[in-house]
């Protein structure tokens, strides 16, 4: 190497070393001070996040440009995205997922809110008992719940739901076997189960509203519904927004019910995008396409969440 070039390189190394050394000293000062324990605690969460969230996300991003094979993947550019956007089943699954979300999330919020309002005036032990009852399906095995629901949806006249509708003179229905009823069956299942978390969050928020507001309203002669509309609903807006956003994110990722109850059928009428991604990844080993689809789904969820905050969260204070 020529002399001047070598000198320049050495100079640059010294400068770089100086920068590193300054940065190191700054970090060392921070972690040897009172904040050392804080950094240690943060590190645990950070490592877990990096391993189980950040790494898989980055990995999925890379795989989405590959034809994945255990013995060596190959880069195929945007081919997986082209496949995804050109696949009519992908769009059908997005449509199904949106229908499912629109039908389940708002109703689930109203039901949870209603139940929380009903539980609120009860004595504490009774509140706890109801909370436990409503939370039970959350901790119960999804497979076990599905078995019960399959029993309820038995297509023959002896089926529980068919016997019930038979009392009203309605013919027995092939609940999970026709496109007319299969989506409704999954929606009904969502309506009648797993509101435990939302109920508990709503209840906690309701208990946080100061009694003085109700007392003042009562002095003004407000009715129950007026109090509900003018006090409870505004105070619960941040909670509702939180449950709405997380509910939609969860609903977009719905997989288990469709997988266990219908397998996506009939005629792909209940194929949700989560199920499609699962099938592509774990049934057909098309991990690249599955990764691309999951990133597209993530983008859709991000856009929907952004719009929710923009329009529904305008006047929400945190």
């Amino acid at each position, binding site marked *: 190497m020529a002399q001047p070039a070598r000198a320049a390189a050495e100079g640059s190394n010294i400068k770089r070393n100086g920068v590193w050394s300054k940065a190191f000293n700054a970090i060392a000062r921070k972690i040897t001070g009172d904040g050392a324990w804080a950094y240690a605690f943060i590190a645990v969460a950070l490592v877990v996040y990096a391993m*189980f969230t*950040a790494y898989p*996300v980055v990995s*999925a991003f890379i795989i989405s440009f590959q034809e994945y094979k*255990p013995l060596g993947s190959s880069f195929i550019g945007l081919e997986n995205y082209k496949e995804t956007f050109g696949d009519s089943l992908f769009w059908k699954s997005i449509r199904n997922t949106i229908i499912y979300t629109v039908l389940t999330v708002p109703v689930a919020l109203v039901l949870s809110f209603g139940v929380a309002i009903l539980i609120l005036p009860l004595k504490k032990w009774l509140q706890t008992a109801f909370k436990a009852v409503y939370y039970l399906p959350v901790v119960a095995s999804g497979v076990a719940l599905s078995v019960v629901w399959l029993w309820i949806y038995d297509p023959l006249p002896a089926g529980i739901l068919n016997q019930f509708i038979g009392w009203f003179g309605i013919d027995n229905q092939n*609940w999970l076997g026709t*496109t007319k009823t299969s989506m409704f069956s999954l929606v009904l299942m969502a309506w009648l189960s797993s509101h435990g978390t939302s109920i508990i969050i709503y209840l906690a928020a309701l208990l946080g509203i100061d009694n003085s507001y109700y007392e003042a309203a009562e002095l003004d002669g407000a009715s129950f519904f007026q109090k509900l509309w003018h006090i409870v609903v505004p105070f619960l807006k941040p909670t509702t927004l939180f449950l709405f956003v997380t509910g939609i994110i969860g609903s977009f990722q719905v997989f288990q019910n469709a997988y266990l109850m219908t397998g996506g059928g009939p005629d792909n009428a209940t194929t949700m995008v989560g199920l499609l991604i699962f099938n592509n990844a774990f*049934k057909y080993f098309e991990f690249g396409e599955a990764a691309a689809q999951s990133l597209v789904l*993530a983008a859709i969820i991000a856009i929907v969440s952004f719009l929710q905050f923009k329009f529904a969260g305008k006047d929400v204070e945190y």
Partner: protein
Amino acid sequence: MAKKFHVLASVLALSVSVTALSACGGNNNGGSAAPSGSASSSASASAGASTEKDTITMLLPPVSANYQSKFDQMAADFNALYPNLTLKIEPAGWEDITQKLDTQVNAGSPPDIAFIGSDGISKYMDQGMLMDITDSVTPEMLADYDEAPLNYMKRGDGLYGFPAYMSIQSIGGNKEMLEAAGVDWKNVQQNGWTFEEFRDAIKKGTVTEGGKTRYGFVFAVSGVTAKDYLNIMIKNAGMPAAFTQDLKFAYTSKNYLEVLKGIRQLIDDGSMPKELSSIDAGKRWNMFLTGQTMITGKGLATFENSAKQNNAKLEAKDASAVADSIPVEYVVLPMPTFAGQPPVSQAAVDGYVTFRGKKEPTPEHKANVVKAAYFMASGKVMAETNSELFVGQITKSAKEAAASLGGDRDPDNMAAVDVLQAHAAPARPDIPADLGAKVIKLEDEVIVPKFQALLAGETTPEEMYEAVKKAAIEEFGADGVVQD
């Protein structure tokens, strides 16, 4: 604050969604991925005759009722035969073996041997994770097997394991009801029947009494089992495989449409329940044992044993007998044939499939894996298992070992199974793995969903046929499909 929260929320939403795919994010290159035996045997001397210690890993489901309880004995017997070799068996349930195996395969560290259906070979071969054992198998081993089932374990020129049994999938009837409907079942067992004869028989077998209907025929078609029903039917309509001998996709043939029309007719006749699309395997077997159907499918040889066991419980007034069940004599029956085509039985060949890890297996380890697979898929081990399953032995060594085991099989059913086996669809190792994988996806994404709609009366046979044809042409090209 609000703006920051928006950004944070969006990032979290992205993370949460993409994390759903976390299991896909395996590292292609890192980690020790070879099967346990590969590494340990890498320093071994000569192939086949090596006396270096080696461990062979297996992932095995409960093939028969007592199969998994014999693992320790199997491992001990194998070790006695080959003192330097150890069998390490991981048991799995039928419901989770595919998931377990898929996870291990995609991590690049599958077991050396897994018990799976031969129809799964294409999928794993396409991943490059199967081990071709052609050069490690001895002529004596090959000579032990019946040719037809052994061919199911081949793809191209490669052999990817040993078959355990060849189980014929057909249908089965209630002897008393068949006779009441005037069906000469012995003649049918030996000479088969046409679709028209079958349709007429199940019409006669459908009886409505007191507002309750006993159906002539119920087949489990809920979910993926729909594929079984359709595949069993179309084999008898001149389409023994998804591809013709010149590798053209066969299900665009006009005979396919005839089968679809026939299947719909059986429901429209009232001989099959209109809710058929939601009836699963457990439900239809319950319907058979409780006298709600004359014929059921798919039927396996072991169903005769299940029916006999339930009959014994009923006789002993055992409370564990199926609720409301009646004594049933199970009669093995063939599927009907369409449009004058010859009968072809659907054969399910399951067996011990051999896998490789990321590292190339050594010849010594490969030879040891072959020894273990052959040990499990022949002789005493297979004789006992197949006897429990009521399926025929497919190796000379198992036939010899089974001679002393006895059994309680109905001679008419045994003769009927022999006829069905004689008509078993031949294996098609010539179908390339990528075509096989494409067909599986086409079946799952187009054929089965449309078939479910057909069974539910939401589409016509013609519409389904056109949908399948369109998808097939998109996948294989106009020249790649049969156009008759």
